[in-house]
């Protein structure tokens, strides 16, 4: 673990020094919530979820948090790809850094970013809607665990792809092809139960769906068997992507 601390320091310092990125990371989701969520809510009012009518802003909040964790995939993909290409990884590796240290540091800082974003989003939502959360310690644990698992899943995917693909154009192409369908075929923005069958099917193989559902159920106090199902699915996806990430990074030359 003594190698992970300097790597975490390195990641955090890079982020803090890159002011525009920091500002964008912290403000964008809040702006999204304030403008998009309130705009939609004022047009359509409440949304029905698990038989309970819920204000759309409150409904969207978990979805936005889940999308922030998805953004870690884009961030880690770009970061690993740009660190591999010019030789930064070479230097790290001969500084006695093991790949596991590198992966742990990326995931830890990623999870930290998502936790801060989630905190900001929840606080903004509470302040503006006056929505009252009565949350038990079990729900908090479920919320935090799902955020961490989701961060592991997306960071692992980003690191895996970043260690193979160093071409910027190809990276952007993959992000465009994957990004929008993933976000809009999940339960982040709407209730998947009422969606067409093909969207439902896509949503069922989408980690954003399971992250959104687990966070939503924890925040709204609607934890049931389906929540457990989402949680287990998220856990399986995270473990699978992490194992894939470890195997890919081990096999890639020059990493």
């Amino acid at each position: 673990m003594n190698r992970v601390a300097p790597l975490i320091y390195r990641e955090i310092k890079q982020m803090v020094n890159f002011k525009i990125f920091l500002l964008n990371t912290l403000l964008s989701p809040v702006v999204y919530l304030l403008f998009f969520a309130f705009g939609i809510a004022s047009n359509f009012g409440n949304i029905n979820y698990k038989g309970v009518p819920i204000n759309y802003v409150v409904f969207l909040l978990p979805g936005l948090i889940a999308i922030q964790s998805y953004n870690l995939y884009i961030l880690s993909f770009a970061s690993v790809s740009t660190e591999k290409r010019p030789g930064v990884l070479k230097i790290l590796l001969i500084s006695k850094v093991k790949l596991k240290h590198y992966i742990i540091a990326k995931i830890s800082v990623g999870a930290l970013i998502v936790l801060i974003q989630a905190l900001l989003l929840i606080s903004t939502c509470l302040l503006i809607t006056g929505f009252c959360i009565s949350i038990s310690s079990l729900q908090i644990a479920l919320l935090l665990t799902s955020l961490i698992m989701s961060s592991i899943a997306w960071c692992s995917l980003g690191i895996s792809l970043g260690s193979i693909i160093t071409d910027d154009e190809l990276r952007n192409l993959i992000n465009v092809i994957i990004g929008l369908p993933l976000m809009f075929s999940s339960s982040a923005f709407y209730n998947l139960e009422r969606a067409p069958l093909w969207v439902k099917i896509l949503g069922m193989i989408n980690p954003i769906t399971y992250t959104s559902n687990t966070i939503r159920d924890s925040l709204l106090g609607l934890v049931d068997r389906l929540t457990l199902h989402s949680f287990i699915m998220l856990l399986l996806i995270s473990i699978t992507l992490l194992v894939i990430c470890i195997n890919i990074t081990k096999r890639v030359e020059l990493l």
Partner: protein
Amino acid sequence: MKYAIETFKLRKIYRNGVEALKGVTFKVKMNEIIDYIGPNGAGKTTTINILATIIKPTSGNAYVLGFDVVKEADEIRSRIGLLVQETILDYFLIVYENLYVYAWLQGIEKSERIKRIKELLKDFDLYDKRNRRWNTLSTGEARRAALARALIHEPEILFIDEPTLGLDPYGKSITWDYLKELRKKGVTIFLASNQMEEIQALCDRVIFIHKGEILEVGHPEEIIKKYAPHTIVEINLSDIKPYLVETISKKISSHEGIERVEFKSPEKLEIHFNENILDVLEMLDIISKLNMKIKSSRIRHATLNDAFIEIVKRSKNYE
């Protein structure tokens, strides 16, 4: 005798089928400054990557400070410094933080870290730039900062790919002085430089590699004597008559003591003398008689560059 680096029949075949090293064997003594020279794609970076334990050889063995590069990579990593060709510092870290992170990774205590960083920044004339980000530094400053980072843990062997690439004369001078100082302190330095001036100023020996094979190993002066023992007269011509080029070459080549005659460009003629250069005036006379004007001429001794070209030409892989 303990060697700093030993390689035995080292081979590397990449997944795309490219055979970068074809059984490379060489030894580097402790406290030596050695240059690993070769054209682009010769296998220099692959060798450094194997010795720095970044990639594994396909076959053969390599030892750094007696440790096996495959089985004892961790032992090697704590004892070596590496400066890659691309001069990459962490983009969003300031110079000070770049050094701080790598000192921390090497396990240097906090108080020692701060002291060491200050010393290195002063040695490389970067103290005033310590709060600047990599992209705001000049090429030379970034290169010096990367070298300072490679030295943060006081390595026993330093691998440097093109140490003064992009540096101005001042930057080169600081770097060379520092490398000489390091050698005095017992550090072995393994350079991969193609800059002849640098090699002749710094290196005890050179290893020539071409297409993955070692062609020659030796002291720079010995190699020059062996492969390019000649004196060279460079003549710049004007009013060139292309049909006379062959005539000039033949006439001059037929003289005793001439190693070879080469037109480096249509207007630049090089005459390589084997022995004395007493016939220079005669050569100039031949050229004048062919009604070609001589703009300028100069006599120089052969350099490592000439020897390098000769070694490559004589190799079986020369195309």
